């Protein structure tokens, strides 16, 4: 059964948490809510779960209106950012507790608990108490408890945020497989674009309590409908260059004029903002269409396999993501190469005017 939210608002005090949320989630779909902190992701999730009531609007499961129906009577499961388990129960009883409450038979319970535990590689820990487990294992228990019920709706609120990098990678891959196997509508919130891309499915980009864009994840990534979506859906931050289109070319800053090529040819005269993700900026030319941006280096970051070079051209701050370790002296002048064929063009209102095909 699909989940539909219609005109959902949530205002607490004078602060708007959610505004005009309209969503339809297909049965069995994977949905990633992507947004920065305070975008309203958790609030939306809690309303979907039935933990909070929306200020206005209706929530339907299939054809049934469930607005205001107690969370106990909903068929949902939820995993929190914190590792939430029942500290006084063993891992087995933690996972079994929703099944016990549902009144299942003993052998059925133990079959399903063992099955789910094996899926999450915690089958050897069933006799332990949650406090005796590592953070990653605790979160696996919480996920197992959410999965074991086979609910219609599975909500995960940044479940991997509190884990270290290695565990996060590992669990992310496993979750992908688990999601594909399940029949539930999965709603997964994250602040990280890479995580959204890895999990696939649909993405719902949120900002300041509103939904900015929805659609299949790769589609949204390639066509961010507004400047804000492009910002939220890019890490490291997307580079923006403001320019003016006139008579077949673009003037960017004082020293740069580039001809309109490919998809950019469709642009009419006027002021535009051009966006290019940092992995499209290079220190060496790759293509004859590349344009050269003379810039001054302000900072370099090395994260092991990649180097981020922060530079400035006129008033534009640029980030170049280069593979490997690069040593670039701070304050030196460099040339940055970028192919305009990869530019997103946004009009004066910040709406996507042209995107690479």
């Amino acid at each position, binding site marked *: 059964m699909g989940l539909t939210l219609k005109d959902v608002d949530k205002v607490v005090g004078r602060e708007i948490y959610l505004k005009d949320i309209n969503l339809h989630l297909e049965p069995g779909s994977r949905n990633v809510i992507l947004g920065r902190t305070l975008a309203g992701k958790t609030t939306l999730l809690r309303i979907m*779960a039935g*933990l909070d009531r929306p200020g206005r609007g209706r929530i339907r499961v299939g054809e049934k209106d469930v607005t205001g129906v*107690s*969370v*106990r009577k*909903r068929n*949902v*499961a*939820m995993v*929190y950012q*914190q590792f*939430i388990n*029942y*500290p*006084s*129960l063993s891992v087995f009883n933690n996972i079994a*507790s*929703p099944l016990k*409450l*549902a009144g299942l038979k003993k052998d059925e319970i133990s079959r399903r608990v063992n099955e789910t535990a094996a899926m999450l590689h915690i089958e050897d820990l069933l006799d332990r108490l949650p406090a005796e487990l590592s953070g990653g294992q605790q979160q696996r228990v*919480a996920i197992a*408890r959410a999965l074991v*019920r086979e609910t219609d709706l599975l909500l995960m609120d940044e479940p991997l945020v509190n884990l270290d990098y290695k565990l996060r990678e590992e669990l992310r891959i496993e979750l992908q497989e688990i999601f594909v196997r399940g029949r539930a509508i999965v709603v997964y919130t994250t602040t990280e674009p890479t995580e959204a891309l890895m999990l696939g499915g649909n993405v719902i980009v949120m900002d300041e309590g509103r939904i900015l864009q929805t659609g299949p994840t790769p589609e949204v990534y390639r066509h961010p409908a507004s400047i804000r979506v492009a910002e939220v859906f890019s890490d490291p931050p997307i580079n923006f260059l403001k320019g003016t289109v006139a008579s077949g070319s673009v003037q960017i800053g004082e020293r740069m004029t580039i001809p309109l090529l490919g998809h950019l040819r469709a642009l009419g005269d006027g002021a535009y903002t051009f966006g290019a993700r940092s992995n499209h900026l290079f220190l060496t030319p790759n293509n004859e269409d590349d344009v050269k941006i003379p810039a001054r280096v302000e900072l370099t970051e090395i994260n092991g396999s990649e180097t981020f070079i922060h530079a400035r051209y006129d008033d534009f701050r640029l980030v170049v993501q280069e593979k490997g370790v690069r040593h670039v002296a701070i304050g030196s002048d460099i040339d940055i190469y970028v192919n305009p064929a990869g530019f997103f063009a946004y009009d004066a209102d910040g709406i996507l005017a042209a995107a690479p095909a």
Partner: protein
Amino acid sequence: MKVRKRSIALGIYYFLLLLPIYWMLNMSLRTNASILATFSLFPTDFTLENYIKIFTDASWYMGYVNAIIYVGMNTVISLTVALPAAYAFSRYQFVGDKQMFFWLLTNRMAPAAVFALPFFQLYSSVGLLDTHIAVALAHCLFNVPLSVWILEGFMSGVPREIDETAFIDGYSLPRFFITIFIPLIKAGVGVTAFFCFMFSWVELLLARTLTVTNAKPISAIMTRTISATGLDYGLLAAAGILTILPGALVIWFVRNYMAKGFALGRV
């Protein structure tokens, strides 16, 4: 040298602290004649007579029994009332919740003497005078607010998400509360029970005012040692020692959580 200095200071502190208790123990093991006659650091004419009297004379040992009965009742009542109340204060927002929470504590600010007369008048009119439940209920006036405060602190330390997860899993509120939540704050429940026990056990004024004979606690009976023939020092000391014991025993059980309890669970 530093450590040495500190241990000396600590030694002096413990000496001063334990001296009166030792002196009481010393007195309880001597006869009145010996107590009044000579100064001695240890019992010269060792006797258990004082203790034997307390354990054989019903008017004495019933004092302990009465006290234990009403203290137990009070602890149970206080916890039963305070657990749901503290949960409400910790988890829900309602009109006047903060004010009400503070008002609870103001009950502890008034001296017991203020309430002695109204309680006496009220209880005598409904026939509760000289019953265990009378004292137990009267002590609730102090212990329920304190319990609510301590428990609320402990409960607020438990993440709300545990409650929500339980409700998502299908627990009803009472079932969640008893099977999941209370085990989580059992240290808090223990500390609260200890505080209830302590306050009720040492409270003299209300207990004495509201009882005559049937429910008279040990602290009131101890005043009987003063009579026309003088003061029965040995007996009084023995009764004192026996009064300290239960408290010491309970402190032993909750020793690890005491500090948190004194901070009303907010550590």
